[in-house]
């Protein structure tokens, strides 16, 4: 590691030129475009750390992302990655996995991309149980386009397109995914990076469609209009109000009130025949005939 270390007495801090995770990042694109306090960077950290700890060959990792703030993740990660059109990371990842089953396919995208524009794709991918890991960064709004309301915006929340308050009920993402047939469903926040990393590690070792929702602060797009304060205030809110409850009933984990306690944890962890296994079973049955 090439590091210029200067011990400055009045600051007691060592200056460095590179970060230990830099070999997994496209450094020519850093620093990234995400706002101060955005949780997207922590998702990348957790993902890279889990790849390192599981000793997965980086050449066998494929990351697909859609449009949105977190959609830039594919550009920053130094794996085989692709930045798809709006809402279409799941069909792209499905093709990738079916064509090359050896790949570890991960979709990192946002709530608007996966559940509004790509809503149909994700429920059908879960129904087919295609082997992929989906990490959904949920910031309750469309951050990149200027803070419009999304399918996860809580009722009464103010956004640029709901200036008098939102009157639509939000999606309960873990419940939707569990009902559609996902084999692993968990929810964490960007503050619980260690737990998130452990969860990603666990999910990477499972088969089937695995879904992890990560709540991230959006101080610029959502927090400002709803008087949630800075990213630190949101993170402290996460610290004070989150309740870890593994195996909770997914029907009870909705985030309808943005100021109430909320449940995080691992909700679903089951084993089910995946799409590729079913395909192989039926193919071998036909060959025997």
């Amino acid at each position: 590691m090439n590091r210029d270390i200067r011990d400055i007495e009045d600051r007691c801090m060592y200056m460095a030129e590179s970060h230990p995770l830099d070999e997994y990042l496209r450094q020519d694109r850093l620093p990234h475009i995400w706002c101060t306090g955005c949780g997207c960077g922590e998702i990348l950290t957790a993902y890279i750390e889990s790849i390192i700890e599981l000793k997965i060959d980086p050449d066998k990792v494929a990351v697909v992302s859609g449009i949105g703030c977190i959609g830039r993740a594919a550009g920053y990660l130094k794996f085989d990655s692709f930045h798809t059109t709006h809402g279409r990371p799941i069909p792209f990842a499905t093709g990738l996995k079916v064509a090359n089953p050896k790949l570890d396919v991960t979709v990192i995208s946002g709530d608007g991309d996966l559940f509004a524009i790509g809503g149909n794709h994700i429920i059908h991918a879960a129904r087919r149980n295609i082997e992929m890991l989906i990490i959904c960064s949920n910031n309750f709004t469309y951050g990149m386009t200027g803070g419009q309301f999304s399918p996860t915006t809580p009722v009464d929340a103010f956004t640029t397109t709901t200036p008098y308050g939102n009157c639509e009920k939000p999606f309960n993402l873990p419940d939707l995914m569990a009902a559609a047939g996902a084999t692993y469903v968990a929810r964490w926040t960007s503050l619980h990076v260690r737990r998130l990393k452990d969860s990603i590690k666990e999910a990477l070792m499972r088969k089937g469609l695995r879904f992890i929702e990560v709540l991230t602060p959006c101080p610029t797009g959502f927090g400002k209009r709803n008087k949630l304060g800075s990213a630190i205030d949101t993170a402290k809110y996460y610290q004070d109000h989150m309740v870890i409850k593994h195996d909770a009933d997914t029907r009870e984990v909705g985030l309808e009130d943005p100021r109430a306690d909320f449940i995080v944890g691992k909700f679903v962890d089951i084993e089910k025949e995946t799409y590729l296994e079913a395909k192989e079973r039926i193919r071998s049955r036909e060959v025997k005939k």
Partner: protein
Amino acid sequence: MAKGTMKYIGKGLEEKKEKKAHAKVYLIKDRCKGCNFCIEFCPKQVLVESKEFNIKGYYLPKLVEIPGEKECVGCGYCSFICPEFAIFAELKDEEEH
């Protein structure tokens, strides 16, 4: 319990107290965007905001080390919580302290 076991137990605890992990904190100055997550969520509270700012105008964190009270133990939470890949801690070698 055999005779004299207690004094050995006591000794073991004392020795453990003396051994503390020490770590150096590194900062990549121009990546910092001043979100103050590292300052706020450091379990040992060893970081504070300094008056120095970087090329983008964000105030950087600095280390306050009070020997015996506030010392970085290298848990690495700052590198986990930093969204900018700007800060990390590395454990010092045994010979250095």
